[in-house]
């Protein structure tokens, strides 16, 4: 349960109710579709029903003739753009095939949903009607859908490339061949990590308003600053003349970490027509064109000695990128490669990635982005090795954990894990789960025909994006620094405004940042306003993704606040005729050490600062800005367990218990951490059991709505048990790590291991996700002789 208020100076660590909530629970939030502007026009897209086709002709005459229709545009109309849609990853020394990708197709469509034309008019319904009257003649071409077939040969998604291969990228440490030579047991598996959707409940939406040479774009985005940069570049505008506002955003999950063609088109059309243009995405559009995630087929190979010591782990990933590279598409599998050794001391680790185009929606970052896939490969394969060795799955984990005293730990993949106590989180998990009692119960239930299983996952990940020197152009190759900014302004009255360069969209950062600032300035967090998501307010920012907003954005807020505190102390010291070093913040007052009665409230300090009665040589005002570039990533970790029942008759899985012990450093607000874990875990459970973006072999999307894309409901899930350990990160002053993706990174592997544990007496030793009833039933019934793995077909 939350609390409404914490004792003065003790807000950090308290489960404070969220500042964000009052408007959201009373219907006064402000999402993009809630905004209307005078004279606003509506846009609706004509989208390809074909997976691969040439556009022979487009006839817009009937559509443009309809009442209330102002314009219909096709790809060739947008010839004045400064360039195609961006892809921002250029790894040094690696060739990446990157075909042009436009907001509206130019001559060819490459996946179902690819936009062909846009209708703009005066009414939400009328523009949708008119799209039906745009007649497009397609010359259908054979589609390539299966990534393994696509990498082996044609047809080619982009004919001019003469290949479907996007790139190859390897990260290797040690010598895996040497490691396998030292192994007594080698386990190899084909791991399929199927395609999923981001599926925020708010679809995308934009309103572009170009007037008098300046552009304002409202967009349901996680990355307003990146969107501003590319709108300016592609429309030939100064960045100072482009303002991007992310108002309340109804979830992102990586899907809204993108620069989308629809954003660019709305801006372009608003400039052309001189009126605001709004586009509100439908769910079926969101399911077919908003970028998707995962979709990897990997061959994994793990070697271990008889005593359980892992000697080598080699992963070959074939990553299906769909039809185009989006902003970070080819980078995504690499994010997993950096933590391919997991929590373990593995001297030889290698990840080989091959990216491939297919006639499907593009993939890019979806919650976890490469790291859920890595964890699935590590943690499921480790269980397979343990089984092969006749070892307990927890024993093999403990045997290989990087010990606490090794941190900071340089691992084979070349990164340095900041801090960790893997035994600690697993010990804590064992306080919640009585494994011996479970095994006895499991044995008994099996005699009754009930197949219950337990699965574990001890995970770590790389987040807190990011040290710019590592991720930037000369390092990993992202064409941006990933520092973060903050500005803290104390007003005349002592109220405080914090401008963060992050762009939270549900995580509760307004509350967490207010807690941090309140303690440092000696004020109530209720008088600390946190502003984000508007490029015209506050300094340049790098926005929200990669579990970065607290570890990177929050630390920037700390640094800016500390500058304000230092200035305030100097002012107080002058006023009270004391030394600045002797001023401390106690009970909401800046006072002289040892004389708590003698002091000034922040409002009094601000009064002095704004009247200008500051010490000689000091600038007036009380406002400071910081740009913080972290020294390293942060590496949160945890230990999760899950208990499931598998109905052997129907193949249906029921999650009975899920216990998550996580460590993201000291809690700023434990209620928010639990909330992130709950939601993240369901994203992972959802992938393991229910969710799958499914295309048929012609490239037709089967899962185009929530009718056939199965998001978990409350009815399928149990309540969760969460607990924490708190191991400080040395990277930032608060010792914090990210938590937004943690649950998702752990959960699909836990559930998979639990299902396999349940299925073993039925002869199934391995199965890939999605663990749907049909696939499990097939695995049970094919388990004698045939491969239970089942490939991609369901």
């Amino acid at each position, binding site marked *: 349960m939350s609390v409404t208020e914490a004792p003065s100076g003790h807000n950090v660590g308290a489960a404070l109710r969220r500042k964000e909530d009052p408007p959201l*629970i*009373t*219907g006064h939030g402000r999402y993009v579709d809630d905004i209307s502007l005078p004279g606003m026009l509506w846009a609706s897209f004509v989208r390809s029903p074909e997976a691969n086709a040439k556009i022979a002709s487009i006839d817009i005459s009937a559509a443009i003739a309809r009442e209330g229709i102002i314009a219909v545009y096709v790809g060739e109309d947008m010839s004045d753009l400064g360039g195609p849609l961006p892809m921002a990853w250029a790894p040094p020394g690696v060739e990446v095939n990157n075909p042009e990708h436009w907001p509206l197709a130019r001559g060819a469509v490459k996946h179902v949903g690819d936009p062909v034309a846009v209708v703009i008019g005066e009414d939400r319904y009328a523009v949708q009607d008119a799209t039906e009257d745009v007649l497009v003649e397609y010359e259908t071409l054979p589609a390539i859908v299966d990534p393994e077939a696509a990498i082996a040969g044609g047809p080619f998604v982009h004919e001019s490339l003469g290949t479907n291969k996007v790139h190859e990228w390897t990260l290797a440490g040690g010598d895996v061949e040497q490691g396998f030579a030292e192994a007594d047991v080698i386990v190899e598996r084909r791991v399929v990590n199927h395609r999923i959707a981001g599926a*925020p409940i708010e679809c995308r939406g934009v309103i572009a308003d170009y007037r008098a040479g300046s552009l304002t774009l409202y967009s349901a985005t996680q990355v307003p600053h990146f969107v501003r940069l590319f709108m300016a570049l592609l429309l030939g505008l100064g960045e100072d003349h482009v303002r991007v506002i992310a108002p309340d955003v109804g979830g992102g999950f990586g899907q809204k970490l993108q620069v989308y063609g629809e954003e660019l088109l709305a801006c372009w059309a608003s400039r052309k027509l001189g009126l605001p243009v709004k586009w509100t995405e439908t769910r079926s559009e969101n399911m077919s064109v908003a970028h998707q995630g995962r979709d990897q087929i990997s061959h994994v190979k793990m070697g271990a000695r008889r005593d359980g010591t892992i000697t080598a782990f080699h992963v070959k990933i074939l990553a299906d990128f769909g039809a185009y590279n989006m902003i970070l598409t080819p980078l995504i599998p690499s994010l997993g490669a950096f933590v391919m050794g997991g929590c373990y001391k593995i001297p030889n680790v290698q990840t080989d990635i091959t990216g491939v185009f297919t006639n499907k929606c593009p993939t890019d970052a979806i919650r976890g982005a490469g790291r859920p896939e890595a964890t699935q490969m590590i943690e499921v394969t480790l269980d397979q090795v343990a089984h092969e060795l006749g070892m307990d799955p927890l024993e093999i984990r403990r045997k290989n954990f990087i010990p606490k005293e090794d941190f900071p730990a340089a691992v084979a993949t070349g990164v340095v894990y900041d801090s960790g106590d893997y035994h600690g989180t697993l010990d804590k998990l064992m306080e919640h789960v009585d494994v011996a009692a479970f095994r006895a119960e499991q044995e008994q239930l099996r005699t009754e025909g009930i197949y219950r299983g337990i699965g574990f996952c001890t995970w770590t990940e790389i987040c807190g994006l990011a040290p710019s020197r590592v991720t930037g152009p000369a390092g990993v190759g992202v064409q941006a620094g990933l520092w973060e900014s903050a500005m803290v302004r104390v007003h005349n009255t002592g109220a405080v405004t914090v401008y963060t360069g992050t762009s939270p969209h549900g995580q509760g950062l307004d509350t967490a940042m207010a807690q941090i600032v309140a303690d440092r300035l000696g004020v109530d967090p209720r008088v600390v306003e946190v502003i984000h998501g508007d490029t015209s307010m506050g300094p340049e920012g790098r926005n929200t993704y990669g579990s970065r907003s607290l570890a990177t954005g929050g630390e920037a807020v700390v640094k800016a606040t500390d500058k304000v505190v230092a200035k305030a102390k100097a002012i107080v010291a002058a006023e009270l005729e004391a030394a600045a070093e002797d001023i401390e913040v106690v009970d909401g007052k800046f006072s002289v050490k040892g004389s708590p009665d003698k002091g000034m409230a922040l409002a009094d300090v601000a009064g002095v600062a704004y009247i200008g009665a500051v010490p000689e040589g000091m600038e007036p005002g009380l406002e400071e800005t910081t740009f913080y570039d972290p020294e390293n990533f942060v590496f949160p970790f945890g230990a999760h367990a899950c208990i499931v029942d598998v109905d052997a008759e129907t193949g249906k899985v029921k999650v009975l218990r899920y216990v998550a012990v996580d460590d993201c450093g000291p809690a700023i607000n434990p209620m928010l951490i639990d*909330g992130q874990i709950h*939601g993240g875990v369901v994203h992972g459970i959802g992938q393991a059991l229910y969710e799958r973006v499914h295309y048929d072999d012609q490239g037709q999307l089967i899962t185009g709505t929530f009718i056939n894309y199965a998001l978990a409901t409350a009815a399928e899930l149990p*309540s969760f048990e969460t607990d924490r350990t708190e191991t400080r990160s040395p990277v930032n002053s608060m010792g914090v790590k990210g938590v937004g993706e943690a649950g998702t990174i752990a959960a699909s592997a836990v559930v998979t291991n639990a299902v396999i544990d349940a299925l073993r007496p039925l002869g199934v030793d391995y199965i890939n996700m999605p663990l749907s009833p049909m696939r499990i039933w097939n695995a049970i019934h094919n388990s004698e002789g045939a491969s239970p793995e089942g490939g991609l077909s369901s």
Partner: protein
Amino acid sequence: MSIVTVRLNVNGVEHSVDVEPRLLLVHALRDQLGLTGTHVGCDTSNCGACTIHMDGAAVKSCTVLAVQADGSELTTIEGLGTEDNLHPMQEAFWNNHGLQCGYCTPGMIMASAALLSENPHPTEDEVRHGLEGNLCRCTGYHNIVKSVLDAAEKSSPEVSA
């Protein structure tokens, strides 16, 4: 297309609205009456973000035509409680961190309030099944279920929406 006039009592206020016969109730509320607290999330009646109360029952307003609501009494999230006078369900969602991005929240709160008016003291299982028509991507439902159970516990048996 012909225009029809419908009479709607929304949150206790009478409105007369001119609509196309095909206009969805949710669009009449949002675009014509400016009540944007009721959201659209899926277009197929799966997500429940558009849930309101129509003559006391929870309905998905994306699956009701405005003309079908002619003469009805409607309550939207804006009419359930205000920031100064929160409905117990709104208070419970705030206290229990029952929301993150807030997009599913109005529908979730309206569905939850209707659930308690039919079953004032539900079990956890009854809450979970009672809310299976409302999707949330942020919370994993844990704190939503906790919020509803908390509201039930704090309310008198005759709690109503």
